[in-house]
């Protein structure tokens, strides 16, 4: 049996890991998702990249994180924290050939998203499922 045919941690599931268990595909976005246990807490970490409207992404992030927090609480989990960082990259173009500068703004931005959650009193599988739902909501709204 290879290491990738079951879910035991026989190898390092870091960002470069390519096994199926470490990746979650949703609406055209590939998220790297890792789960860990730390002193009674379940720790989830996800990273992904998508291209979207900045304002829409901001709304989606707030909504998706709030909904995940509500679901975790409803499942009986205690949230240590759920934190997300979004690194935005956008391009603006400026050009002039005579006496007027033309400005071109990209309608979309490149967003590198990380979502980290530390949760107590919840099974690893349950937090993993809640993370996937959250990531799917983000990717679906911004596809």
């Amino acid at each position, binding site marked *: 049996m290879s290491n990738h045919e079951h879910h035991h941690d026989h190898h390092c599931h870091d960002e470069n890991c390519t096994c199926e268990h470490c990746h979650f595909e949703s609406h055209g976005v590939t998220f790297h998702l890792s789960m860990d246990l*730390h*002193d*009674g*807490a379940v*720790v989830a970490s996800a990273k992904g990249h998508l291209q979207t409207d900045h304002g829409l992404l901001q709304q989606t992030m707030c909504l998706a994180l709030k909904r995940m927090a509500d679901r975790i609480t409803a499942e009986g989990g*205690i949230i*240590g*924290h759920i934190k997300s960082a979004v690194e935005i990259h956008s391009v603006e173009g400026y050009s002039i050939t005579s006496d007027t500068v033309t400005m071109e703004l990209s309608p979309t931005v490149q967003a590198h998203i990380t979502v980290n959650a*530390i949760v*107590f*009193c919840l099974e690893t599988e349950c937090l993993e499922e809640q993370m996937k739902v959250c990531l799917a909501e983000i990717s679906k709204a911004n596809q």
Partner: protein
Amino acid sequence: MDSVYRARQELDPEWLIVETTGVAYPAAIRENLKEALDMDCRICILTDASRWGRIFLPLRPMLSGQIEGADTVLINKIDLAEEDFLQLMEKDIHDINPSTQILRCCATTQVAPVIWDAIIGEV
């Protein structure tokens, strides 16, 4: 340890503030910093009055382990709790660590200078 070492080497700060994760045991970090880098630390634990009632029993072993080594414990979000509850919370904390200094604060108002002084050990 590596980050702290590099910060000291490259920036030589008077103070270095390390914000740990919520599952860290600061006293263990203090020991490591002392042994590895001969650095002294003060530990300030931030607690949440609005959630204490829900988390104290199920997370007691971890919370106790975090509070045991604390020089100061801040009770934050006091605007969201009743006075009776805050006193009960202070007792819970004192039962774990009788020598720690407990201070109340609220991030929606300005933090009093005396609290900053206590955190850095000047009160």
